[in-house]
């Protein structure tokens, strides 16, 4: 099996597993209890919070553990908006956010908020001019993703942070795909809130973080016990928290070196695909993209059948984001960067891990070539295109 869907989820690393296991079975005290077992648990939990904070350039007390990237996003948007609605009712985001952001924003529209969805260019980047122009007196929140989960493009986060800070507007970033791969410093980049999710960097599923800068006015999302300094109720998922902290640390060890290798392999993949498969397109920015992301469209064929055919060779990949693969609509991200529907339907995301080898990439390219050819031979669109002498009539 060749696993090239690391943006969807990742296996838990052995060292991470080893870190977690004692907290399931031995150091299992409820951190809110008084006795030694719980004090030990609590100490380790707080230590993990400190370690996560350090990796983000945040303070320990600014780290809140949640159950997922989705929860962090929902909390950040809905409860910041609700807590500040007297100040204003305008939110700015982009057209290519993850659905956790987009659908949370839509919910806020139902509650009377106005949302601006910024356009992106053909490489998936917003224009800072557009951003500045969209700011109004009523703007209370800017939420723009750190890096896109489908096409990998990285947004100009420090620049956005600077603009938001100068205007006194809270800036949230969904960094679910960026964390563990890019160096992030929330203070230097003027980020007020940041979402991350453990399972995207070889940590466990069901655990996430919302960083909330001190002084940001936000309501709780989960009400109940006094956990997480009264801000996020529910018995702490200590094994998950310990696993997340460990996986985050491991992922940031020698990050530059690993990225160098990853970028090389990614670029090798991109070059060969573009050169060897006719009518293939790279989506997203050529260089300013996640080190592990490659996203293509292959004209005249459809994405799902491409995935099924690759799966026959043990190659695990996805078309767009994992969570929308059940849907019939093409990716909102690919449409937003200007692709026509019929081309957007034929997309393939290959997301590498630090362990991906050149052999795996070579094998994948070979299979991809034959699969694309087979599916084109099956395609009435390709037939028409060839009949037309290779000229488009779309």
């Amino acid at each position, binding site marked *: 099996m060749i696993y090239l869907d690391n943006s969807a989820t990742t296996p838990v690393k052995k060292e991470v597993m080893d870190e977690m296991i004692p907290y399931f079975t031995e150091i299992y005290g409820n951190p809110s209890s008084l006795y030694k077992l719980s004090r030990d648990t609590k100490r380790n939990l707080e230590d993990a919070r400190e370690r996560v904070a350090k990796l983000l350039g945040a303070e320990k007390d600014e780290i809140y553990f949640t159950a997922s990237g989705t929860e962090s996003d929902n909390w950040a948007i809905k409860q910041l908006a609700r807590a500040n609605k007297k100040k204003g009712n305008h939110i700015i985001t982009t057209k290519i956010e993850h659905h956790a952001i987009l659908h949370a924003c839509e919910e806020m529209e139902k509650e009377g908020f106005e949302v601006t969805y910024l356009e992106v260019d053909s490489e998936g980047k917003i224009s800072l001019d557009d951003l500045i122009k969209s700011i109004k007196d009523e703007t209370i929140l800017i939420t723009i993703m750190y890096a896109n989960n489908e096409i990998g493009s990285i947004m100009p986060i420090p620049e956005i942070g600077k603009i938001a800070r100068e205007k006194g507007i809270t800036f949230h970033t969904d960094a679910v795909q960026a964390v563990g791969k890019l160096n992030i410093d929330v203070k230097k980049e003027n980020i007020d809130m940041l979402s991350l999710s453990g399972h995207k960097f070889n940590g466990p599923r069901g655990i996430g973080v919302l960083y909330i800068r001190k002084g940001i006015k936000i309501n709780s999302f989960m009400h109940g016990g006094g956990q997480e300094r009264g801000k996020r109720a529910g018995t702490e998922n200590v094994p998950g928290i310990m696993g997340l902290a460990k996986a985050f640390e491991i992922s940031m060890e020698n990050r530059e070196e690993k990225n160098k290798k990853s970028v090389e392999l990614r670029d090798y993949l991109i070059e060969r695909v573009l050169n060897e498969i006719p009518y293939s397109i790279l989506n997203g920015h050529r260089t300013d993209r996640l080190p592990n992301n490659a996203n293509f469209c292959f004209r*005249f*064929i*459809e994405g*799902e*059948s491409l995935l*099924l*055919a690759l799966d*026959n060779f043990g190659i695990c990949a996805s078309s767009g984001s994992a969570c929308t693969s*059940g*849907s*019939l609509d*093409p990716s909102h991200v690919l449409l937003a960067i200007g692709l026509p*529907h*019929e081309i957007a*339907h034929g997309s393939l995301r290959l997301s590498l891990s630090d362990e991906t080898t050149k052999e795996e990439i070579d094998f994948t390219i070979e299979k991809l070539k034959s699969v694309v050819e087979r599916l084109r*031979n*099956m*395609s*009435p*669109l*390709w*037939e028409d295109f060839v009949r037309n002498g290779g000229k488009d009539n*779309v």
Partner: protein
Amino acid sequence: MYSDKVMEHFNSPRNMGEIENPDGVGTVGNAKCGDIMRIYLEVEDDIIVDVKFKTFGCGAAVATSSMATELIKGKTIDEALELTNKAVVEALDGLPPAKIHCSVLAEEAIKAAIEDYKNKRKDAE
């Protein structure tokens, strides 16, 4: 999500290809929605002696095309017109709810090809 039968037809589609100078051709669906099916017919004495398809679409689209062509090959035009999408789904041991529309498309593609055949015959008369 797909039955073994669907996967088998996706991996080894029957009747995939073109017919030169076909007696009828039908193309339905559109690229925007992600599914296009084209059916070619060769008809002799009202019997479908050969049928081929080309499909742009998901695994279910390919499998329903393949199965539908299998089901009408050797049949009379009238028998072929009686083919329902339900029969195609059943022959494939079922489809996920979100993919039922593919079987409808297959039924429609066959009807469109027969329609074309009938029109051509009328023109020839």
